[in-house]
């Protein structure tokens, strides 16, 4: 795939200069009376690694299937460049998919599987042979070219599924939880490989997963889907540091959700109080456990919030430790420390008000 235009990607995602490749406009999907997706609008840039993250039943696979052409949207449009994509049958779309269960053709060899797309496009045999062997080399599977899919391992099948899609040089690659069937170690290894492969070929990837860690590690941007609606679309750093809603804050990593009361620029929650430029009324805040510190005896730095509490639970995680602290008035804070050095009883906690990020409530959805 040396002829594929190489896009030098350093810090993707933040790069707003790149052109939009795929544009999903107000897409909705209903199965009978069951609403699976409502009013989804999303853009994917060229060379971008976008992850659609969501729990099972959030509609993420349905959205991917609409882009691939296996489902028809009940409303809305999908555009690729200046062409309407959602009116074309799947076999005319320059989009390829890596299926969750790989979907390799059992009656064809590894080599024939990879060659499939080029064969049906009636490319010259010499070109097919060259591109297939190149693709197999890229995924380090040249040695298994003549094997049947049933004779190779799950991880190897995964590589073949990837090669079979990439050999067609699609403009966009869709990946439907391709790593979910692999064991933890292989999975981490494939995450790194997949990411570097994506940078190498410069093709836009839309990656579907329910694993927030996977999404954080691999993506330029994450689109978090909840019950058929987009909660937030942002870079991993942005989505972690500034979650838009309570749901996002809880789904990505651990967090303390604080329901406070704002009056004249001061937030109060039980024994806590800090200043925030917010209108009066109830407000919800997300405070990450690692942003709360165990305070020393010395006086607090000005502007930090300090509270004393009783340790109820300590969980050792190796590099860090999670501590549940009861601070009175029904307030329980979860704190992540780099190791406390033993059992604790009463502790002083502190955090800076800037780390208490205001988030919107996430109302229940049916």
């Amino acid at each position, binding site marked *: 795939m040396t002829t594929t235009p190489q896009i030098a990607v350093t810090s993707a995602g933040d790069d707003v200069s790149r052109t939009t490749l795929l544009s999903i406009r107000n897409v909705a999907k209903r199965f009978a009376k069951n609403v699976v997706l409502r009013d989804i609008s999303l853009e994917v840039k060229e060379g971008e690694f976008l992850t659609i993250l969501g729990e099972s039943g959030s509609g993420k696979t349905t959205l991917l299937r609409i882009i*691939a052409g296996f489902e028809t949207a009940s409303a809305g449009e999908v555009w690729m460049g200046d062409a309407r994509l959602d009116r074309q049958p799947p*076999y005319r779309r320059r*989009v390829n998919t890596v299926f969750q269960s790989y979907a390799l*053709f*059992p*009656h064809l060899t590894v080599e024939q599987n990879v060659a*499939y797309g080029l064969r*049906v496009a009636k490319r010259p045999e010499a070109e097919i042979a060259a591109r297939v062997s190149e693709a197999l080399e890229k995924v380090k599977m040249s040695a298994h070219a003549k094997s049947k899919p049933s004779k190779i391992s799950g991880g190897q099948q995964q590589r073949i599924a990837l090669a079979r899609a990439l050999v067609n040089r699609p403009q966009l690659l869709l990946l439907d939880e391709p790593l979910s069937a692999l064991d933890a170690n292989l999975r981490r290894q494939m995450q790194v490989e997949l990411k570097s492969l994506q940078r190498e070929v410069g093709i836009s990837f839309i990656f579907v997963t329910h694993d927030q860690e996977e999404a954080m590690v691999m993506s330029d941007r994450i689109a978090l889907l909840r019950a058929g609606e987009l909660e937030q679309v942002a870079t991993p750093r942005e989505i972690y540091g500034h979650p838009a809603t309570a749901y996002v804050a809880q789904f990505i990593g651990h967090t303390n959700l604080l329901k406070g009361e704002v009056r004249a620029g001061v937030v109060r929650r039980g024994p806590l109080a800090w200043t925030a430029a917010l209108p009066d009324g109830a407000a919800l805040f997300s405070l990450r456990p690692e942003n709360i510190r165990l305070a020393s005896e010395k006086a607090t730095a000005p502007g930090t919030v300090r509270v004393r509490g009783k340790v109820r639970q300590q969980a050792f995680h190796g590099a860090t430790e999670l501590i549940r602290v009861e601070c009175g008035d029904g307030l329980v804070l979860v704190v992540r420390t780099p190791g406390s050095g033993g059992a604790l009883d009463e502790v002083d906690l502190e955090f800076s008000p800037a780390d208490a990020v205001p988030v919107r409530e996430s109302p229940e959805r049916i």
Partner: protein
Amino acid sequence: MFSRAYKAAVTLPPLLWVTVFLLLPYLLMFCYSFWSVSASQAIVHSWNLDNYGQLLRVNVYWQTLLRSMWIAARVTLFSLLLGYPLAYFLSFYASKKKDLLYQLVIIPLWVSYLVRAYAWKTILGSDGVLNTLLQYVHLTTHPLEFLLYSPFAVVLTLTHIYTPFAFLPIYAALEHIPRNLVEASHDLGATPGQTFWKVIFPLSIPGVVAGATFAFVLSLGDFLAPLLLGGPSGIMISNIVVSLFGAAYNWPLGAAISFCMLLLVVCLLVFSERLEKKWSFS
């Protein structure tokens, strides 16, 4: 795991059944095929190959055997041509009415064979439904004679009767094809036609082989359809066997012909099983 007594109790009855009702009769038939009949119509227990020699020498026997195979081959072909599209449509496109349509294909199997054969007789006869209709609309002036009492009638009737047998294994094979393979094929740019020939058909071959075997073996040994609708030109090998065991009272020759057919069918089954294995990937 299981005690020896339990294993014996489970395996003995079927073993006994097969021995008493299948292997022993076949052995007896095999012995008969080497014996002969005296002028006074008594079985002579002298061992020789005369019956097999007669099979090759007397034209009517091997010609009828060949004709039976030719009829069975045509029935197989037509059953597949009817059964495959039906199974394909049912499996891939009849999403909601699937069960109903499946039942409609199966129900004829519950209707007596004789009734269906007679039905064709009333349709194809010289004053039957079809001829009456053709003359009524002035397409023909005389009844078409080839419709009934001909190989045509036999092939038609047997195709009608054995198409469900070809349909069933094909349908089962098509149902077993994971639908994401079809999606993967479309995803890789294959049109529905290309997808059918490159993915669906190759993966359904075991079903086609099984269906073809059913249709061929069952119609090869059929004797009612040729008896009722075949006429002199539509006689099949089983009719000869029946008359040899019955009116002609020549059990040894009948046994020899039966044994040859048995051998033919066993070879066919072995061959089709190999073919099925070669094309199955689960």
